[in-house]
């Protein structure tokens, strides 16, 4: 039996509350507030207490999907990323870089947002980069 408490940050609003994920044998079994955290001071709201409830949900995507007609079929990473690369390059080469757009994410990490805008700007040479800050 392997039990650990992992200190992290709540994924909901922008308050940035600290919380521990209770992990038992590779599965999250609960959430604990972080007593020493300067914002949340050992408290959580109902969303925070349920912060991990969706993580092991059966609806989670577990494999890349490629559209065929009106349905999706499962695909390997190699095939899916190959298709994405080919299509994005095709659009850039046919219509120009500004025919592409990239929506980055207020839910992803700083590192991921940094890479996503770097991909748009350095690889495709477009500034069509935005996210839902205004929405």
């Amino acid at each position: 039996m392997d039990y650990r408490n992992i200190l992290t940050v709540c994924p909901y609003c922008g308050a940035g509350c600290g919380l521990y994920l209770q992990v038992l044998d590779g599965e999250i079994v609960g959430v604990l507030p972080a007593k020493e955290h300067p914002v949340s001071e050992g408290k959580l709201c109902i969303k925070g207490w349920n912060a991990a409830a969706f993580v092991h949900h059966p609806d989670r995507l577990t494999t890349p999907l490629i559209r065929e007609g009106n349905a999706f079929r499962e695909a390997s990473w190699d095939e899916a990323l190959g298709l994405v690369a080919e299509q994005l390059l095709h659009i850039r080469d046919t219509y120009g870089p500004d025919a592409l757009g990239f929506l980055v994410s207020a839910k992803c990490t700083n590192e991921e947002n940094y890479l996503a805008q770097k991909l748009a700007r350095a690889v495709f040479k477009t500034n069509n980069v935005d996210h839902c800050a205004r929405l």
Partner: protein
Amino acid sequence: MAGLAAAFGSGAMTNSTPEFSQYTRCFLITGSNTTEAHPLVASHVLKAKERGAKVVVIDPREVQIGRLADLYLRPRPGTDVAWLNGLMYVIVTEELADQEFIEKRTEGFEEMWRVVQQYPPERVEEITGIPADDLRAAARMYAQNKPAAILYAMGITQHTTGVDNVKSIANLAMLTGNLGIPGGGVNPLRGQNNVQGACDMGGLPNVYPAYQPVTSPEAKAKFEAAWGVEGLSDRIGLTVVEMVNAAGEGRLRGLFVMGENPMLSDPDIQHARECLERLEFLVVQDIFLTETAQLAHVVLPGASFAEKDGTFTATDRRIQRVRKAVEPPGQAKADWEILCELAKRLTQHAIRNTQWDYPSPAEIMSEIARVAPSYGGVTYERLDREGSLQWPVPSVDHPGTPYLHKEKFTRGLGRFHAIEFQEAAELPDEEYPFILTTGRMMFQFHTGTMTRRSPKLEQEAPEPYVEMNPEDAARIGLDGTRRVRVVSRRGAIEVAVRLTERIRPGVVFIPFHYAEAAANVLTHAALDPVAKIPEYKVCAVRVEPVGEK
């Protein structure tokens, strides 16, 4: 954020959440349902109230914190500039302004005063419906209890006049010298865990990381050197709503979406769907098959916050570590890994390209620290040791910055703006007699992708609804009807009706979390001309009873 950047030179929350309980003596809360949308920020406000701090809430809905306030004012939606000018009129005419601060640290006061002097409380009452004496009382409470903090959220920004609203708020804080001091400030509460970070990282069409403009030749040269490329674009790109429209017009052909759900969060959903369906290629990287992912050509399974390492930046510019607790399900991967693998495929012909070799997110942060001056001193080692760092943190020996604009604004002098009141883009009329305003509630979050799959949260609030004043219900002959159709010029939805005095007559409220009756079917895509924020908080609708009583 555009409004704050124009006034101060930096578009972020000026102060820190923990300062509210420690220092603040008066809160002015507007367009923020703080206790429901940011409960642990609200807990600092309530702690301050226990030691005697004053709370003024100005909101068209009597949100929960409005009931706890010392003063609650209920304006007609879309009239924020008018009551903000009114507060300043009272503060100046009753000599409650901070003259020394205005003289030493700001510019543009005279110009602003020429406009503001046309907003005496009686005129403001006519525009907003706020009784003149209540406005005077609020102005005195805010100006006489320093430090005073203004807290606001999307209720202020999601208007065609959103940037004007924010500039007016900045005016009010400068007028009373409530900037550059702990416990004061202008504090936009960001609604998403990492919306601040996504902006900081250059997830915007006009700036590189740390708000370095794409139009600046120096910034362009800097990033070309850092990224080992040539020919970065110096044209400002498209915003989300503009991208969706460009897709509809065939100007945008391909869209890469990472962890966003514009199908449910964009204004005028039917229009958004038609536009996105015209794309030649749509890639969606997400953890669930969202409404947007269902339209995609390729869907890539990403990792949730619990399955990867990284950092989030909270609303008070607080950079904190996110830590991997469990493996992603099946073949799903951390989003940063997916991006690196894709980028390597796209650049494989480039010789000795090491640009996309990051052993772990810590090395990505090292690169961020090199190119983003405000993150210059951020390392994982420091975050592990110190818990959090508030930017700007320009070097490894800098402690971080709990509050901005101490002694000097980012832009030098703070700038007052003269702002005239303008009506919302769509006002009620005979055919659509109600103002619809949208927002969040306690148990659900944004488009519901996560909360609606969390049994305890979904159980608390499984069903969409519209809030309506009982007077209005009687007037349109609801007479006990439980369900209504809400109709705008864009579409119609059917929802349960909740009668409550918390909303003023003439206004209805719908939370926007529910795909089955999405409030954004009704909302108006009119944008603020500068920030390009849609006007979610005001549109015209009519309400009709449906079915049995």
